[in-house]
């Protein structure tokens, strides 16, 4: 599929909208599979995916054909997701400031999924690393193209993130149990 994407990207750069339409169809679910666990909310993740493709279209002239169009798209998805997370955090801050009668959840809003909640406890970098490694089956070499950092550095960070997840899982489980029992 990589060759096909490269060709479509090249055609899109020349103004072929049908080619870009195909790129959207081919990659939207894959990009959503990255944005959704990153952001933890379906509606925001959908908006993020839309923004990723619009931004990609506007920045296509900056893409250099080197066989890594998907990695380039992941980079954009990463940046858009980080912005979305920051925007939501700011919004939460405003809500918390002006709406004292409502408590604002720190967990993903629309999901009770324990794993998503656990992921949200990681830093954005760690979360991205775990998502790319586990959910997207990316190698450390591939991740280094997307997030930067050497494969050895990423391996170390991944092991730490996994340990943190495991530790948080214990705490999360305890909290859930206490909440259930009370």
């Amino acid at each position, binding site marked *: 599929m990589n060759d096909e994407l490269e060709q479509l990207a090249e055609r899109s750069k020349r103004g072929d909208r049908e080619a870009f339409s195909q790129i959207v169809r081919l990659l939207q679910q894959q990009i959503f599979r990255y944005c959704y666990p990153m952001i933890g909310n379906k509606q925001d993740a959908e908006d993020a995916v839309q923004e990723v493709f619009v931004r990609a279209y506007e920045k296509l*002239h*900056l893409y250099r054909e080197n066989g890594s169009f998907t990695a380039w798209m992941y980079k954009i998805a990463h940046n858009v997701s980080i912005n979305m997370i920051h925007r939501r955090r700011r919004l939460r801050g405003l809500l918390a400031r002006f709406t004292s009668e409502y408590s604002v959840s720190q967990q993903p809003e629309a999901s009770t999924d324990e794993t998503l909640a656990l992921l949200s406890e990681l830093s954005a970098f760690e979360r991205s690393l775990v998502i790319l490694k*586990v959910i997207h089956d990316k190698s450390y070499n591939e991740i280094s193209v997307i997030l*930067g*950092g050497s494969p050895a*550095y990423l391996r170390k*960070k991944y092991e730490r993130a996994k340990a943190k997840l495991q530790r948080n899982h214990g705490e999360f489980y305890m909290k859930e149990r206490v909440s259930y029992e009370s």
Partner: protein
Amino acid sequence: MNHDALETNLRSIHIPNVDVHDRVMEQIGGSRAKPALFKKTAFIMALSVAVVCVTGFAAVRMIIDLYNEQNMRVMTLKAFDEENPKPLQLFTQEEINGYMATLLPGESIALYRPENNPQKIIQYYSKPVEFERLAEMKAMIGGHYVPVAIPAAFEFIKGSIQYHPISLDPMDIYQQAAEHPGQPVALKAETSREMLNAAFHFRHGTDEYVVRLGDGARWHTVYTERSKVSTSEVVKVSGIDGVITVAGGQKELMWNNGETYLSVSTTDLSADADRHLVELLTAFIQ
């Protein structure tokens, strides 16, 4: 739960189906993909009418907006103010030079000092890769940005390219600072292959001219110290506004077409220098 079970859980996260195709295509309906960066053909027509036309003013202004032929703003030159203050000087130039001396060309370093740094800013520095021959630079850059022909009176002396440093995880840096209070953190960072900027040094008689270029979007707003700017003048090059300023004993022409930012500077403060600045700039956008 062991590691394997955790990974299994992560893999089994339910990801709903999504379809944003129509929304995307509708949103980009009114726009079109921009042409490839620095395609020379895009400039040929414009350059045939390259003129220098002084439309500006001698007095120093707080904000100078520059426009292209379609009357769209391509760059703003403005003084640092309360909202956009001059970046904090977290490290002295001497300290920075010391750290840079530990790097090889093309390597980068992240510097952090928590003292007087409420925004927890981490600064990245990348050591430029230097070139003695223009052809080498051209090969490295891949043809973009590099002039086809240098104006006769100019001679290439040297050049350098800086590449984008890749950000480290800030938490690692903050943690290290917390573990070693009172000590600055200096960590080597990876460097990407993406060019941050390039500098070309030319000799013209006894004067030196330096051309710097970078990403136009990054330099959409250029901040300067108002107190240092003694004059500013808007000039039109290739149909697009540029601005010549005199500041700190240096004359500089800044120009941005939205895609590419170019700055040409010299310590020659004579009236002739304006013409040379434009001549050199024109060679780069040809």
